[in-house]
């Protein structure tokens, strides 16, 4: 088994993720990054909330994991970090957990610049409960609670968290594997609040209704519709996925 597998709790595999779910790729990127950083696994705590993304660390990561109430992972993580600053504390959540119910805790943690890394596995809908819209669902998208097209506007998570005061902010998609690994390494090494916006794929719900239910095609879609922040113009922000470090 490769080094990065040390971070994976294989005893509970195969995972509960749907076939082709991008969250599995994020899980892998995390394992690679942790392994390459040579972090002490015994002094690392992953805090996650409710939803499919909560499962990325609980139970699939082999370290101390704290699976908490919906939206509150960042608050719990703050308590862990303040009480024992020696621990490396990483938060994983989805668009609902981090940006909707957890939105308040997110902006305050960024404001405080507390030494946490928050990974948002954004699949642009509430997967676990059946594909309802979320604060990151694109306007016009079809979801189970917006069958005629989502009426609201989504957040630009990068702009939001940066404005709140985060020290390191980056966005990539699950189609950008090595970039995710590098961003994870940088974020964890940041001595302050680091936020990673990882666009993930939900072939079962959001994908099937808006892009494709084919996992490979969904990855291709993310690749084709991404543009690096250094090349992006204002117009691109509306139509494309702007990736990079911000």
């Amino acid at each position, binding site marked *: 088994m490769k080094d990065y597998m040390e971070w*994976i709790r294989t005893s509970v595999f195969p*995972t509960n993720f749907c*076939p*082709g779910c991008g969250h599995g790729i994020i899980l*892998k990127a995390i394992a690679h990054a942790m392994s390459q950083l040579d972090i002490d696994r015994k002094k690392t705590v992953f805090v996650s909330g409710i939803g499919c993304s909560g499962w990325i660390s609980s139970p699939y990561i082999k370290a101390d994991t704290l699976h908490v109430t919906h939206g509150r992972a960042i608050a719990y993580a703050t308590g862990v970090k303040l009480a024992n600053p020696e621990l490396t504390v990483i938060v994983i959540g989805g668009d609902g957990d981090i940006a909707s119910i957890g939105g308040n805790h997110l902006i305050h943690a960024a404001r405080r610049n507390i030494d946490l890394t928050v990974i948002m596995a954004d699949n642009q809908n509430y997967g676990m409960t059946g594909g309802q819209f979320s604060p990151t669902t694109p306007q016009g998208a079809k979801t189970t609670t917006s069958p005629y097209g989502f009426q609201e506007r989504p957040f630009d998570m990068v702009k939001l968290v940066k404005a709140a005061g985060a020290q390191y902010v980056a966005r990539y998609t699950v189609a950008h594997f090595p970039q995710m690994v590098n961003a994870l390494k940088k974020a964890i090494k940041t001595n302050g609040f680091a936020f990673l916006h990882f666009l993930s794929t939900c072939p079962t719900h959001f994908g099937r209704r808006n892009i494709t239910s084919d*996992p*490979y095609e969904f990855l291709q879609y993310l690749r084709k519709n991404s543009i690096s922040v250094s090349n992006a113009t204002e117009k691109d922000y509306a139509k494309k996925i702007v990736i990079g470090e911000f």
Partner: protein
Amino acid sequence: MEYEIKLKADWCKGCYICVKICPKKVFDISETEGKHGFREVVIARSEDCIGCMLCENFCPDFAIEVMRREYANKEN
């Protein structure tokens, strides 16, 4: 022959990312359904593997490991 590919059939969910992403078409979709009721992935042309790691990196289920043969042998 330079690379060895390990495929954990128990963890494969038949999403076929590996089959489609491989630049050398190393993988195929099985002709028959496996014990879980879907057509699983099989290694068809492992000798064509160039070690690009796309299959390993993008398999959401950790079902694929690609290693240089000399390292693979050391492990075994």
